[in-house]
């Protein structure tokens, strides 16, 4: 997948509009300076939008585009191209391709004339969509035809690349419309545009069969995404299998389950559950001890030991770890990694101490988030800290991974909290395990694809045999998300 930096030009300067509204224009400076600061390499594809041209219906930024095309960049330019003459003017400026918007949606005959004059390989058709409806003329009115009709006529004209922008997503960093791209035919060659705001978005787009490129504007300009890193990751979107992790909530040596951390019920023997999950293909197992007493915690160590004896996949254990010595005891009992939560919020230095003693790979920060706040005591009390900021701090202090649980969603089967996941994965490099709210197969996909999680965790769904670990992995695989077999 090509990662294509995008510059919107207005009055010779690089600007960004929010949702296509000229009143929101934010200026970033001269195009050459912006290209330097983004480290756009020679030979790179560059997407340029002539904003005033788009509004007025005639090429405006021709001198600026000619200057940029002379810098050994493969420029594709769009905005206000309504005729063969307009399109020719851009190619005369040195642009390699023209991006045809309004005409592609509104006027199949003009589109065909442009293709006949220039050749289909020099034309990219651009379709702007809002809530499933095609928009034209700088997004200021609806097109006359449906998205399916527009796409059909573009393909009949022989044009290969179609740039599809969900304008409700553009410039607002909510992520691309994965659902829309998934709903479109697999054989299209789509350049995705709008909402790409994290490296995870780039990876997720690169996994979709009909996405051949993605255009990134705001996220590059605002330094949310590094171009070189995005290109490297886009070239290997399936480098690492994503993990499916069953969780055992354990109290007094028994697996229990509850809704929103209360209303606890017995759900069986931890060793039996662990064995079943490994056999089903679990990539890892998490045990969270929710015992409230010292006696219960002693039992937890025995439980960890019993489970570790029966298991040949990685085991992460959390609950009641207050000190480096508690951490060590869990490792000695057979845990590979230990999750810390309340104690780290009360003493953040504990993260660094454990990372130094046992290595960052052993330290998992467990963050229970409720209404945006990090919670202590099994989600019962707020710690007075923003959950996203806390995850960022935990990474800085040496956490190797974050287990992010939405207390609001936990036990509800209404889906993972995608907004929370995006907020965290946009700001940390370490991997995030999504937890809380799994109810359907699609929820697991969405946590990885849209949320940017590198692992998905569920408890009651697996305990109750609603889904097996194998069901989830088969589904993810079919959806193009790499899993371990």
């Amino acid at each position, binding site marked *: 997948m090509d990662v294509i930096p995008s510059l919107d030009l207005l009055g010779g300067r690089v600007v960004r509009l929010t949702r296509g509204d000229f009143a929101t224009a934010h200026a970033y400076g001269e195009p050459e300076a912006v290209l330097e600061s983004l480290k756009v390499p020679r030979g790179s594809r560059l997407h340029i939008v002539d904003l005033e041209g788009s509004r007025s219906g005639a090429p405006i930024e021709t001198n600026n585009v000619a200057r940029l095309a002379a810098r050994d960049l493969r420029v594709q330019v769009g905005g206000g191209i309504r005729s063969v003459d307009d399109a020719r003017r851009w190619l005369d400026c040195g642009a390699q391709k023209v991006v045809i918007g309004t005409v592609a949606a509104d006027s199949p005959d003009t589109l065909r004339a442009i293709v006949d004059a220039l050749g289909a390989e020099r034309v990219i058709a651009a379709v702007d969509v809002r809530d499933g409806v095609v928009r034209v003329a700088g997004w200021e009115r609806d097109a006359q035809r449906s998205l399916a009709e527009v796409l059909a006529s573009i393909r009949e004209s022989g044009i290969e690349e179609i740039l599809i922008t969900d304008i409700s997503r553009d410039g607002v960093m909510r992520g691309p419309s994965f659902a829309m791209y998934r709903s479109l035919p697999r054989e299209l060659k789509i350049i995705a545009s709008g909402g790409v705001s994290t490296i995870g978005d780039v990876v997720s787009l690169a996994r979709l069969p009909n996405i051949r490129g993605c255009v990134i504007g705001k996220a590059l300009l605002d330094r949310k995404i590094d171009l070189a890193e995005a290109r*490297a990751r886009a070239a*290997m979107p399936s*480098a690492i299998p994503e*993990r499916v992790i069953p969780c055992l909530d354990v109290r007094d040596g028994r697996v229990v389950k509850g809704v929103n951390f209360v209303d606890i019920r017995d759900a069986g023997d931890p060793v039996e559950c662990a064995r079943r999950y490994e056999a089903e293909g679990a990539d890892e197992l998490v045990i969270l001890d929710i015992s409230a007493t010292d006696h219960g915690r002693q039992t937890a160590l025995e439980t960890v030991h019993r489970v*570790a004896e029966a298991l040949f996949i990685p085991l992460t254990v959390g609950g009641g770890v207050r000190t480096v010595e508690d951490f060590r005891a869990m490792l*000695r009992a057979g845990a*590979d990694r230990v999750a810390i939560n309340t104690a780290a919020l009360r003493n953040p230095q504990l993260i660094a101490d454990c990372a130094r003693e046992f290595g960052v*790979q052993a330290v998992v920060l467990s963050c229970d988030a409720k209404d945006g706040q990090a919670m202590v005591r099994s989600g019962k009390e707020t710690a007075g800290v923003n959950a996203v900021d806390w995850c960022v701090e935990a990474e800085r202090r040496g956490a190797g991974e974050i287990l992010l649980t939405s207390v609001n969603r936990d036990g509800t089967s209404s889906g993972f909290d995608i907004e929370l996941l995006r907020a965290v994965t946009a700001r940390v490099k370490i*991997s995030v395990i999504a937890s809380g709210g799994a109810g359907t197969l699609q929820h697991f996909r969405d946590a990885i694809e849209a949320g940017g999680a590198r692992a998905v965790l569920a408890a009651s769904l697996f305990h109750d045999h609603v889904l097996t670990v194998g069901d989830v992995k088969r589904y993810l695989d079919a959806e193009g998300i790499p899993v*371990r077999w």
Partner: protein
Amino acid sequence: MEVTLIDSPVANVANIARGLRAAGASLEVTRDAEVIARAGKVVLPGVGSFIAAMRWLEENHIDDAIRAAVKNGASLLGICVGHQALFEISNEMGVTRGLGLVAGEVKKFEGALPVPQIGWNRVTANGAPLFEGITPGTSFYFVNSYAASDVPHEIARAEYGGPFTAAVQNSRVFGVQFHPEKSSTAGLRVLRNFVAWT
């Protein structure tokens, strides 16, 4: 089959012991250099820092004991940092000498992917006996920031940004960068292949 497991404090010895037992080994877990030097089949585990692992081996003369055992015809399996210790050199915090039983050096991962690598990664072997019965592309569990790459005795490789060496074999000396004891049935098969290897 008798296996001598080196009881390094810089390792997850208990988990590896469980894996080896499940793979059919009868184990002697020891840090006695003389016992190791006379052993017929040795496993060198290791997690965390290369320097700490090597320092412990040297201070307790276990480095010489391992070399003596191999010279006397023992087979050896290094796991994770134990695998890295087999090479001539590691570049972890400057340059540290390894056991020199396998040619090559260990370097930090470069590129866009997060380091350390924590998780499952697909491994492709070249038909070596250590991977007998394992389908190419089977995933194993890795936790590492450093790895060898493109070394002469490579028998399996994986990709993390670029290709790296997942396993080596120099005659009777084997090393695996992944954790076979945490790699479910495929990992146990690798351990069983080593335990049964003659």
